[in-house]
């Protein structure tokens, strides 16, 4: 129903908002000691370029499905190219569910077993993926309307304990960009990679507008900065580095005397969790859509149920936080592939397609 391109942009922004504030800051703190904005800007620029290439590639290829676009080049190419994507999204869901349930236990459900929270997360993701992309797109609009105000409210108040001296030094005197190769930095790319892949699988009823996507992307830049700089300015690098979830610790320090509630963290966390639910739903839907293309003879609903049960089983099998860290380290190549290679290939194929189309119109 949406012809203006707002829905796709909103889903994109919401998915990333659900990711940015949780795992990203601590990964970046362990990757860099000072001048964090350089790291953020580099990865953000890459993200924006990748997004632009991906969207342009899709549009040039006449808004076709990304699987069809890859299929137009060769028969086995989609298999070869999209199998890593399948694997990556599977791992991404597992990591997200596991990490978020750990965090939720930490913050406010100390006596609830981990598996129960994981079950809740995956069942809601299942519910959303079951309904399909158009429903999720509409849901995302509603979620934005409901949860933007608490997030902005908390973000504004979280400047309460800021010490601006922690901003310094702005640039590391001996900046050597060696952090770019650090595993921790590559792990931090988690929030940049793959979040926009779903654009390539959107049904024709949802259109993508390059302008609105890039506007959405621009909106995310301050969020990336805030997620790192709020903890940094509150605690300083040395302390912030020690926390597993620096952003949540920052917001825990906020004290609003006139509010009924003691901990505003909970509102921030919950609002972002609503967005994270959508991210999980979208990712699960991407997985199912890809899997359906791979094995078309199995009904989609059966695939979805099987995938959900499988992912849940794997995510409860992960024994501890360290194991999760290792897992994140393992998928670095996959992540870089999702982040840089897939948009590039889409761009190239789209460009070729456009040129071919131009030539045929010239001939006729």
């Amino acid at each position, binding site marked *: 129903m949406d012809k203006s391109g707002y829905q796709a942009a909103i889903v994109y922004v919401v998915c990333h908002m659900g990711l940015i504030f949780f795992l990203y800051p601590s990964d970046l703190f362990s990757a860099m000691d000072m001048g964090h904005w350089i790291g953020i800007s580099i990865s953000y620029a890459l993200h924006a370029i990748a997004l632009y290439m991906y969207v342009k590639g899709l549009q040039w290829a006449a808004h076709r499905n990304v699987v069809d676009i890859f299929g137009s080049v060769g028969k086995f190419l989609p298999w070869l190219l999209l199998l890593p994507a399948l694997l990556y999204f599977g791992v991404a869901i597992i990591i997200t569910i596991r990490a978020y349930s750990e965090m939720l236990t930490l913050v406010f459900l100390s006596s609830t077993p981990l598996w129960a929270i994981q079950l*809740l997360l995956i069942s809601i993701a299942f*519910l*959303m993926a079951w309904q399909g992309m158009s429903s999720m797109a509409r*849901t995302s609009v*509603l979620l934005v309307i409901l949860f933007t105000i608490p997030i902005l409210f908390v973000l504004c108040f979280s400047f309460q304990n800021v010490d601006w001296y922690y901003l310094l030094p702005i640039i590391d005197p001996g900046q050597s960009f060696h952090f770019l190769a650090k595993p921790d930095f590559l792990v931090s790319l988690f929030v940049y990679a793959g979040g926009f892949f779903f654009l390539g699988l959107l049904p024709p009823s949802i259109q993508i507008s390059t302008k609105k996507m890039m506007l959405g992307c621009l909106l995310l830049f301050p969020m990336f900065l805030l997620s790192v700089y709020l903890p940094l300015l509150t605690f300083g690098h040395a302390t912030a580095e020690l926390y597993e979830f620096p952003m949540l610790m920052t917001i825990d320090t906020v004290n609003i005397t006139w509010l009924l509630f003691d901990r505003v963290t909970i509102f921030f966390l919950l609002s972002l969790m*609503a967005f994270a639910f959508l991210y999980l739903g979208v990712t699960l839907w991407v997985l199912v859509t890809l899997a359906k293309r791979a094995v078309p003879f199995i009904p989609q609903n059966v695939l979805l149920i099987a995938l959900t049960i499988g992912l849940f089983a794997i995510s409860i099998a992960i024994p501890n936080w360290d194991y999760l860290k290792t897992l994140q380290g393992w998928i670095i190549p996959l992540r870089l592939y999702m982040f840089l290679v897939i948009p590039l290939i889409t761009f190239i194929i789209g460009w070729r397609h456009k040129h071919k189309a131009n030539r045929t119109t010239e001939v006729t």
Partner: protein
Amino acid sequence: MDLKESLAEYFKANADYFNVEIRLQQYQVQVIGLDSLVDLPQSIASLQTQTSNLVKTSLPPAKLLKILGELVEPNLASIIPDIMKGHLILLEPLSGTCCAVLPISKNVTRSVSAPETESTVYGSSSSFLEDIHTNIGILRKHCTGSSLQVEAYTAGSSHPKSLMLIYQEDRIKPQLLQSIQAKIRAGLHQDVQHIQQLENMLGLNKWSFVTNFNMTELPQNAAHALQQGKVVFMIDRHPFAIILPSLVMDMFCMKDDHNYPRTFMYLIRLLRIVGVLIATIIPGLYVALVSINPEVLRLQLALSIANSRQDVPYPAFVETLLLLIVLELILEASVRLPKSVGPTITMVGGIILGQAAVSAKLVSNLLIIVLAGTTIASSTVVGFQNAVSVRVFKYLLIILSAIYGMLGLLAGIVVICAYMGHQKSMGIPYLSFPTLNQKDDRNG
């Protein structure tokens, strides 16, 4: 057996059936009809006035009857539906000519009065009533444009009812109209006595938690819906306009809001949205805060809540559910009861039960406040059927809050959002913008 006898045989169990002979010009004519629907003396007087005024005095019976009404075949099958509709049948036995006349009918409808289930502050206060033609007349007064279309259908085989489909030709999306018309034509054999049967006929989701139709007693709301490109159904003997499709903003907006200054209109709508949020979230929030996440509250507040719940023997979940069910009972009872008994129930429910439940330490003081607020807030939405949806959603939140605390509350909200995002009626998503028409007022 001639027609008169077979009619008498058919209607022998109907005490209101009459068959009298009168003289029209030179003919003896039988006048047949139902006493309960036809004002006989006045109708006969009117027929005689009409015939006595005729210039030509010697018309054959067929021509004479044609002037008075519509000729029908003189057999049971074609006469009986006319009689049932309240028409008067004139039968000239010698020639066997028969005609159906629109008589002066007994008045079986009330006059247009103020609405009973919806109230207006600033706005027209006439309401629809049971008679379909009056309804359409009232609606036409509100929609004076030429694009208003009224299609009539007779639905059902055992108890036929007239069903009117009303729309504005230049506003409605052609696909929506065509799909509705096709569904109606395919389902004309089904009885349409109530809304569930109409849902059946149109193939809508029968188990939906959000309402498929908006029903309104107020003509201005129906006219507004037509303006927005929706369709309105009218069923005979049903004092409501049934608006399809129902969208989320219909919960918060009504036509009369436009009679307020614009600022107040938006503020009032915002208030309704807040009302819905409070009504769905607050009971769940209470359960979550009291039983799972008390640390979220300020210490003093948490202590005072704990203090008020000190002697309550069971968990907050049971406590809330207990009182909520009592409240639902009161609400349902006060709808059912005659107006003279209603206030008693309110008093018993509100003062005696509420006060006693607290004194007996069955529920905490705070819960009474929470639930009173909830019940009031859930009535701020426009339309009773929307209020029912809101009432249902809060139970999901209470159950999830009792298990997962604040996280459960959030999960419930997300589930409700996802559910609303998934709902569609006649292909139009529940979460669409209120104007369905493609044409814009500004650019034609």
